[in-house]
């Protein structure tokens, strides 16, 4: 079923919308959440929360593209859950490696200007990403948005793992320099 038809089902308040969306995108959302949380049960709960969020948001929202909206939502829910897990030191998924990787360019003591909110930061990240070549963008987001392993990314992008690591390091440094230029790092 096309995304357009699924959205029409949501607008018609038909519960088939949830079934269709789960059938079409459920696995991808589950994998994304699992990459973040490292636990399949937690991931399933996050996917269910995402479907509920979609039910509540559509209408009036008409996400386009639908998958991107779902991915952003499931990631947000999963990241919030991860925050709690990390506070309780209860592990996490591959994304935690990404947190550690970031430490070499963004040390613990480095903070953002206090008046900066997350939405503004996201717009800056958009600008940063727009400047990257598509391959670099896929590498950066594959690692830090989707929490994919270096091995998977190397295979997907047809690069060596070492090449992936080096490029990611350069991209983190580039991001650091960009945010410094924007004056948001304290």
């Amino acid at each position, binding site marked *: 079923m096309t995304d357009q038809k699924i959205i029409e089902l949501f607008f018609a308040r038909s519960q088939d919308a949830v079934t269709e969306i789960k059938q079409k995108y459920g*696995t*991808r*959302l589950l*994998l*994304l959440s699992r990459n973040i949380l490292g636990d399949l049960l937690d991931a399933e709960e996050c996917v269910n929360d995402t479907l509920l969020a979609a039910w509540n948001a559509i209408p009036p929202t008409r*996400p*386009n*593209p639908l*998958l*991107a*909206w779902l*991915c*952003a939502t499931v*990631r*947000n829910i999963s*990241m919030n859950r991860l*925050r709690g897990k990390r506070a309780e030191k209860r592990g996490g998924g591959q*994304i935690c490696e*990404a*947190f550690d990787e*970031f*430490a070499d360019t*963004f040390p*613990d*003591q*480095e*903070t*953002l200007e206090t008046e900066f909110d*997350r*939405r503004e*930061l*996201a717009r800056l*990240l*958009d*600008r940063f*990403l*727009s*400047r990257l*070549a*598509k391959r670099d*963008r*896929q590498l950066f*987001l*594959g690692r*830090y*948005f*989707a929490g*994919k392993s270096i091995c*998977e*990314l190397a*295979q*997907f*992008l*047809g690069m060596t793992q070492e090449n992936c690591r080096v490029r990611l390091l350069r991209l983190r440094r580039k*991001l650091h320099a960009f*945010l410094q*230029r*924007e004056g948001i*790092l304290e």
Partner: protein
Amino acid sequence: MNARNEILFALSEISPKHIRCVTPLLSERPAVTRRSFMKKTAKWTGKIIGTAAAAVIVLGLIFLPGLWQSNTPLQSASPTEDETIHLTLLIESEGTSEFCTNHYPEKYVTEYEKDHPSVEIQIEKLPEDVEEREPVLQRIRTEIMAGKGPDIFLLPTCPVGSDYDLDTGNAYLEPLFQNVEQSMYGEKFLDISQYYDADMELDKEGLNQAVMDGGCVGDARYVLPLRYTVPVALADVSALKERKIDVNSLSSSVESFFSTLVAYGDGSISPQLQSTFFCAFPEIYDYKREKVTLEQEKMTSFINVYREYVALSADCPVFPPDNSKDIEVNRETPLVLDNLGEDVLVLTALSRLSGEETEVIPLNTFDGTLTASVTYWCAVGNSCEHPQEAYDFISHFLSPDFQKDQTALGLGSCPGWPVRTNGFVSTLWNSYKEFHKVDLPKEILELALTDEDFSILQAEIGAVRFETVWDRDMDMALRRRLYDWDAMKPITEDTNTIAQDILDELRWRIQE
């Protein structure tokens, strides 16, 4: 929370178009992309192709011995389909005349493709016909919203056919971007600052820096202005002195300009200004906060003066003239309102010949700022996947050669002055004389002009804007609310109400 965590959390809120590029990775098995597939199979494919090629060569040598003696040159291997970079270029379709803005882009695409065999540029033209244009605009706007759309834009801010009759409000051609600045803030274009900054071949010194900065939002550069203009008044100083009109008071601001003429009491000495609303205010919108910053008090004050001026000059013709005959006629008009361009150049020449003291007065906005208007520009679309190639292509339009060649064709169909501001007066003047040599008197044809005759080029530009459809609509609204053009008499509506309505309309538009 520290910066690192904030960034990783904020990634959930990035634009869907970026998320979309990562969704192919979200499958159980790593997707076998074309790249990885080709890499994996390259070894075997190479062997097979190598064997086949060897066989073909052997067969060729056996059966076609005459082939190597043929005069056909050996061509370099053309890039495969996978290696070819496809770019789409959107331009206006302003006729097919060589004097139109499309002549050079089309020619340059051919040259560029020849020099860059791996790049293929497909040109799309926006139709001139209003009915054909509408669905095309809708389609491209939808594509842009969906993160697609053209890779490169090369467009006039207001299409050449967009001029409309101020009195009747007849239809005009709608531009693709109704408000280029708002589109910059909305990141409809790609930030090309890294490519621009790294471009060492481009002579940036010769570009008008103030105008070029008009394409920036903060440090991000979204648009490369190619041509610009400033509103000017060409004044016959001695004729104005005879009428006891102070030339300095005309130049201080547009409000002062109108007040002076109203005080003189004869509107016939100056024709009407075409884009009053645009010329009046330097800053009207705060696109970042989606607010209208123009205060009602200023608006009301301006309308009060403008109301009197409209009533005074209602039956005067609208400038600019477009041929030498009109120019002759308008030698008798002591004050001519125009934009920086050919007509001002011609009137400057006429005054030099006659020995009359003429002054080109920059028409400052309400607060005394000279505001330039970008009339022709180019940009890379935000969804462009080959920004470096796209930038390489558009940077050519800023090169001295291109700007000079285009200027030599005249400024007629694309108004405005080259953003590489200096050094073009003689080129433009010579091309004008060549084109009008049948109509122009001998003494004009013999006259040489240089940049030194055109001091307006050195006027300090305080602000840069892109004229918007909104500005034009507000112009129309103002004129209709202030004057009954059928009955040819002023309308006595409360100024505060008009100002309030205009500002409400703008607020609604910016938030729409």
